[in-house]
């Protein structure tokens, strides 16, 4: 047992070797050391979902994970999904549906919905209940959710959502 621990995190496809205090929260490492500012801290208790990342592909609230717990695991933030066709489709649908206002919850919402839509057959899109249930992991105080749900369903129906011009 030592004061700092050496960890290797695979963040957005890049390995980072870091010395961290065991108490350091993953979200703080991502924000403060790696300057991944899409990670937002809204409650630091796993309720609001503004800090949602993909941990080995599963949406997880990075405020409730110690950096040491993520040793050797793959962490994907919104920045790491930039350019991905599913994410691009989702972002476009959010824009078209006015699905954001202050933007604080948006990155966590996008990451969470991305995991719902990724690899999904556009002919069997999620139901509205399924989308809303998944969004329970994200609080939004601005939009009332309706526009987000519409955006997610639109993106799901259009598959990658990436209609080539």
């Amino acid at each position, binding site marked *: 047992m030592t004061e700092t621990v050496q960890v290797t995190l695979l963040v957005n496809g890049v390995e980072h070797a870091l010395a961290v205090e065991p108490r350091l929260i993953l979200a703080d490492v991502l924000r403060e050391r790696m300057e991944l*500012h899409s990670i937002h801290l809204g409650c630091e208790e796993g309720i*609001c979902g503004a800090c949602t990342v993909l941990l080995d592909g599963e949406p997880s609230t990075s405020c409730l994970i110690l950096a040491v717990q993520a040793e050797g695991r793959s962490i994907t933030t919104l*920045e790491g999904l930039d350019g991905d066709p599913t994410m691009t489709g989702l972002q476009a649908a959010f824009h078209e549906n*006015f699905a954001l206002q202050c*933007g*604080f*919850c948006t990155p966590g919402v996008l990451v969470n919905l991305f995991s719902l839509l990724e690899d999904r057959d556009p002919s069997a899109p999620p139901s509205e209940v399924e989308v809303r249930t998944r969004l329970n992991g994200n609080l939004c*105080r*601005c939009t009332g959710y309706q526009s987000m749900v519409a955006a997610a369903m639109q993106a799901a129906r259009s598959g990658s959502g990436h209609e080539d011009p």
Partner: protein
Amino acid sequence: MRTGAVFGRPVLRREDSRFLKGEGVYVPDVRLPDAAEAVVKRSPHAHALIRHIDISEAAAAPGVVAVITADDLTDTGVYRPYHKSPPAFANLLQPLEKGHDVPLLAAGRVRRVGEPVALVVAEDRYLAEDAARLIRVDYEPLEPVLDPEAGLRPEAPVIHDELGDNVQSRVGVVVGDPDGAMAAADHTARFGFTIRRQIGSPLGPRAVLARFDPVEGLTVWSATQMQHLARKVIGGILGVAEDRIRVICPDMGGSFGGGVYYEDILIPYLARRVGRPVRWVEDRTENLVNARHARDQVHDVEVGFDSRGRLLALRDRILVDMGIANFYGLVVPYNTISHLKSQYRIDNYEAAATCVITNKTPNAPARGAGRVTAAFVIERVLERVARRLDLDPADVRRVNLIPADAMPFDTGVPYRDGKPSVYDSGDFPAQLEMALEAIDYQEFRARQARLRAEGRHVGIGISAHMEGTGFGPPESAIVRVDGSGAVTILSGSNNHGQSHETTLAQVCADALGVDIETISLRDGDTALIRQGGGTFASRTAVTGSMAVAGAARKLRKKAIKMAAHLHGVEVDGLTVFGGVIRDGAGARITTLAELARTTGDGECTGGRAGLEAMDSFASPTVTWASGTHVVTLEVDRDTGQVELERYVIAHDAGNIINPAVVEGQIVGGVVHGIGNALSEEAVYDEAGNLLSGSFVDYRLPRAIDVPPIEVHHQEFPSGLNDLGIKGCGEGGTVGAPAAIANAVEDALHPLDLRITEMPLQPEKILRYIREAEAASRGQAAGMERW
């Protein structure tokens, strides 16, 4: 309906791209080299004397830069909350308004849980929190005052000695002859209502970052809604010239009420004191215990009415639990008084509010300030009157609504600016019918009867709201064009989710005659513009737009004059469209870009350099937005749980700049109101601890908690500004709790529920059901109940 090239159209949001990529810059994202981190040590007691504070261990802890207590604050002024109404209002109603100092850090005594007691500055937040735990404070607990009725008792401890008692303010109004009308009414009734404490809860907690430079002065990044006011307050208390302070509000994670807080002053103070930039980022527990507590009113209402349910007289005595300070004067209590008559013609009216100091967090305006409670009270009263007379609640509203031909309508109640409250335009009866038709009221009643026979409890609830919007100081804007044709708006407003980068650009595009793609907006920064009001009170669509339109029009006129002068043509007939200036025959004369380049080369005309103009606008008084809400829901009689089914709102915000943005404001507002109605409550225990201190216990609505929400627009232009705009930021919230409470009552009919409180958690609903069941057994036994 007013439309221009882009005004009135659902233009996609121009601010989206940075947020969609996670590149919004919120205060915690602003990086300054060498910034230290502050943590506030807060009181764990509602009321206690501070015998001694020992900071020695904390000061010696690893990474600590400084530890500050009240004893160190010898070089600051005092924070004395604003508390005086404008003279026009004060002369009219003669309110009682008392002021007292609020210490920036508790000195000798703490008056609420969460009050700042000390500050720790350290190398990072972890170390600062470690050190804060090492500050030893020796408290001697005192008896707390935790509800306003207790605070008024003669034996109650006085919380601020300066006030003499616990009454901070009192205001009342009388219209017509309420005593006479009450005495003459066919029916009278009396109700008590309690609206519990709720919290604004933006998703992004507050944050402040400050840097001090002896030459530049202070630069402060703050998540505040009014940067210019923050600058004034900081300057006043810290003794720094206003022009040596720059307050920047970058992106903000919502706000929903608020203003200038202790930390907005303390963090700049620390930066100056320790000679390093200092950052403070609030966490959620701090936000919930500190920021934007709201509602918390007790109403004692008497009503006189006739057999058709017409309200002949209304009297309301209101107690407001202010917490330990009132930072906003009569905003909350008087908003309640001035909105209580709502859309209804009530000729005889009397209301008085008393603001009582208690050992809780300050009660402040939050989305729907004072109006949520007003709508709850008046709409519950109408619902009870309908039940008492066995009339359809929709019919009772119909007989009370102000008819369209009575517009503009003077309610007889002065507004907070001392001017008459005159509803500037609208058609309330049509609005009610629009909402009822959208939800298909008759069909619902038929379905309700069928389901009732199956033992299911579905209900429908109606409420109306009024919202005085566009209040407050002027707003300013500068519009300028550069040599490439890029148009920049500098606004004194403050965008924290309201889509100003889109809506103000829409206004500017049409007023100036340019493509919206050429426009960008900057706001929320005192360095941009001398004066700014900021964004609150549903005001920016009204005041911000008018300032932008004014500046853009001035600029257009100036450009035309310049074009005429430089090109030797007549001013008459020149037009600007798409940034191109043409003559009456459509021939291209020049462009704004060319003109900007010309002046840039120093060939100015008329001695006025620069293609830039500025304007300010203050609304002569508030514009009146309105809405009618109808909700259907089902109640689980065994558990008290409510499932919302459908929500319809018919809404008038005057001329609409961007219908999709307005819909977003309204739907978001309704969902805020759904939380206020059903799940959000700031619960204090008997020692004055806030029990709902996290999002586990303070329950914001989630995606599955809300039904489909339909917005139907009426557009009755305001007569108070030439764009015809009314505000729309809060109305969704205002009407929702009343509509939902009424629907819950309706769902259980004929069981006679008597809902007197909001919010309505399942447990409370089950309690009302049991009371109603007991009463109906009592009635069967011949007991009277009203």
